[in-house]
């Protein structure tokens, strides 16, 4: 196995994002992570759609395709199904993945395709210069909604869980260490890994995530989900999450017994718990969880397909074309 440094994953293409864009930090985190991922560079493929975020493959010195708007999960599915030896990563935006590409996303999740899906959520269409997206908050004034958006937004983690995803996580551009930790777990996961990455678009939607990045704000709002640990946050750990009547509920820590506080376990088979956690916030407003919501085992599409092919070969032998042509009966003319 070749040893890599981050620069092995950089390309000669000038990075074309606005100065200050959150995409830069994510790129750095991914490159850094890949250097230590333990997969040969030529075995890695990045497939993206269209959007600022989707320029990503051009900057990764791996195989890559900057495809068309919304279709990256479909293209990646075909690649991964036919080449299960590869590490296939998808980079997409909130418009690309959730608007035009929503269907491909949810289907790749339910199939448990072995794709690592990085959704750069900046709550805006960056590339087309600032229309609202399916994650923009109600009332948002944008180029296409001068009087404010009237669409209720998706909660991407809820949607993914509702679509039978086996791995669902959230991280944020500004915290590279956190991002790398999540990437690592996603890579280790067998099957689709859905990662929502909050990403600041400083040109069209600046400070959208300030509640999680602002020095003051983040203390109160960042809820770290850490497997095996109690879900506690806030100044001096003053807040806690408990499960009450099926709702994940925020309480003052000192109002509940320690044993009542939820211990985070993303591996629970029942998706209800991860779903409940995903409802703690609807967008980056108020206390908002970061980390892995759900991580469960289910056979991947690729594995099952390979097994079926192996079974077929075992039972019927390698395909014999001449035999196939006469398999529906034949007759001979002399």
């Amino acid at each position, binding site marked *: 196995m070749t040893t890599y440094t981050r620069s092995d994953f950089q390309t000669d293409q000038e990075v074309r994002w606005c100065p200050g864009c959150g995409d830069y930090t994510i790129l750095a985190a991914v490159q850094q992570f890949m250097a230590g991922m333990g997969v040969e560079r030529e075995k890695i493929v990045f497939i993206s759609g269209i959007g600022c975020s989707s320029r990503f493959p*051009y900057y990764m010195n791996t195989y*890559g395709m900057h495809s068309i708007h919304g279709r990256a999960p479909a*293209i990646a599915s*075909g*690649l991964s199904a*036919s*080449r299960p030896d590869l590490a296939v990563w998808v980079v997409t935006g909130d418009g690309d993945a959730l608007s035009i590409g929503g269907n491909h996303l949810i289907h790749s999740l339910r199939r448990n395709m072995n794709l690592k899906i990085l959704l750069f959520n900046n709550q805006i269409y960056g590339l087309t210069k600032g229309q609202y997206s399916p994650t923009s908050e109600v009332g948002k004034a944008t180029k296409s909604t001068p009087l404010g958006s009237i669409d209720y937004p998706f909660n991407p983690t809820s949607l993914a869980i509702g679509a039978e995803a086996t791995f669902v996580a959230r991280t944020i551009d500004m915290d590279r260490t956190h991002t790398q930790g999540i990437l690592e777990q996603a890579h280790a996961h067998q099957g689709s890994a859905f990662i929502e990455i909050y990403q600041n678009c400083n040109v069209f939607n600046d400070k959208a995530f300030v509640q999680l990045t602002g020095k003051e704000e983040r203390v109160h709002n960042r809820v770290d989900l850490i497997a095996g640990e109690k879900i506690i946050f806030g100044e001096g750990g003053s807040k806690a999450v408990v499960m009450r009547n099926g709702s994940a509920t925020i309480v003052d820590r000192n109002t509940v017994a320690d044993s009542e506080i939820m211990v985070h376990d993303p591996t629970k088979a029942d998706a209800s718990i991860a779903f409940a956690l995903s409802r703690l916030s609807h967008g980056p407003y108020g206390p908002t969880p970061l980390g892995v919501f759900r991580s469960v085992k289910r056979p991947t599409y690729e594995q099952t397909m390979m097994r079926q092919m192996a079974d077929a070969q075992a039972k019927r032998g390698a395909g014999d074309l001449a035999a196939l042509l006469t398999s529906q009966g034949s*007759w001979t003319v002399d």
Partner: protein
Amino acid sequence: MTEKTATLDAPPETVILDSVVIRLAGDSGDGMQLAGARFTDASAAFGNDLATFPNFPAEIRAPAGTLPGVSSFQVQIADFDILTAGDEPDCLVAMNPAGLKANVSDLRQGGTLIVNHEAFDERNLAKAGYEVSPLEDGSLDGFRMIQVPMDTLTKEAVKETGVTGRDVLRSKNFVALGLLAWMFHRPTEPTVDWVNAKFGKKPEVAAANLAAFRAGHTFGEVTEATRTTITVKPAKLSPGTYTNVTGNTALAWGLIAASQAAKLPLFYGTYPITPASDILHELSRHKNFGVRTFQAEDEIAGVGAAIGAAFGGSLAATGSSGPGIALKSEAISLAFMTELPLIVINVQRGGPSTGLPTKVEQSDLLFSLFGRHGESPLPVIAASAPSDAFDVAIEAARIALKYMTPVILLSDNVIANGTEPWKLPNVDDIPDISVPFATAPNAPDGSYLPYMRNVETFARPWAIPGTPGLEHRIGGLEKEAVSGNVSYTPANHQLMTDSRAWKVKNIENDIPELQVAGDGDAEILVLGWGSTAGSIRSAADKVRRRDLKVATAHLRYLNPFPANLGDVLRRFPKVLVPELNSGQLRMLIRAEFLTPAEGLNKIAGQPFQVSEIEDKIMEMLGS
């Protein structure tokens, strides 16, 4: 078979014909397709040449007994080389009033009409829209009618087999089949063998079907009206092993053969749609050939997955019909821009919109050529008959791989579901169409240039993930020549547009010249493409039998055209282009060669009758 007749008083009379057209018509539930297929197989085994035309009810289940529920199957058997399932049936089997009503107008005057008169009760007559029974009002006087109590015969026959209740009458089609076997001297073994093999696991069903078959046969033997039987001698087919195949099956097999010839695993990304779904069904059965089928969430994902597989080094194909191909348009454009090999199969059906899903039309030719935004010329090739779909699939793969381009392969509903005896190729004769992957850098500085074209074919190299040192990125934005980097430079865009166009146009030097059949000095050339081949050839044959001259040519390659097409067209004072559309090929040759071609156009969801083309030729010949 003849020994059975020995038990009867008078020996049956046998008429020998060179060809016969038979149509079975009934309810979708009556098993007409199955009966037709069995009759066909028996005829093939007997040695006739033949061609079939199944005509399904539209996608939707129609209520039993109604006109929209009618399903029919037509077969022509002959002792010579025939090309179509025939125009007018010589013999029509009508299982119920609706089947009769929908088909009797096609039966030739004096033809034989076999009816299950027991189905002509008030309810069924009303459902078919008959006020009085046609069996009684004299309207069928022009035909030789044979009334068969099929319900009774069936019930009697299956009594002892253990089949009961609703299932009893399911064997009715075998009564009809047995009768036909008698009337047309068909061997019975193929049917018996097939039933035993097919229903091996349900012996009571096998027994019932065979009993019904025998009952029909016996009915023929003992009935005065059917004492006169007809036979069609075996055709002088060229020696070889034959099978009977539908176009969809042949196409699927062609893809498998291409995958072997290309030494690449086959990936088929698709979404079900009539009449293309059977390609998926067939391919999904052959995982032991290394075939991967991916039933995607929609057509866009189907082609998207195929593009991903192509990027990964598979022989990738996607297939659909009109509405689905429309959805794939944007992604095909991506495959064109990224110059990845991809086979796009369009099994045409009646349009526009959902249209007539089970009917035939050739109306997607211009759509194949121009159905994408921007300048995106693609090779387009079309199958002309069920078995031809096998060869065309291999040819599509060859072009896609050699030129690194998507290729559009046109079939249609008549090819897809029609059958013909196919002389099997020797699989060892299928040429190697493999292309080498790029494995090493192609630039002096040791880098990899994904758009450094092959100087002869203009194909770009194909470096697949997993190859160390050739990591590269492709995409839908305009690419800089050679480097493949994104480029918006005016001169580069012009160069790349021209290069992509040249690459496709140049394929004309790598395909056979167009062959003209018939009279080279004729006044008129009939030019066709696709599934009309048989009708056109048959029509020309008929014209020639009148001692008139006519030439025909059939295009497999619609883009680019064969290099000699212009010359061919100029050799004939008149050019007729019969098409099941409003004149799409005609428009192309008018535009390219300024040929004042005339059209014969039909958009009725049905193939041409041979006579329609014949009449038009005669008209143009002034005869």
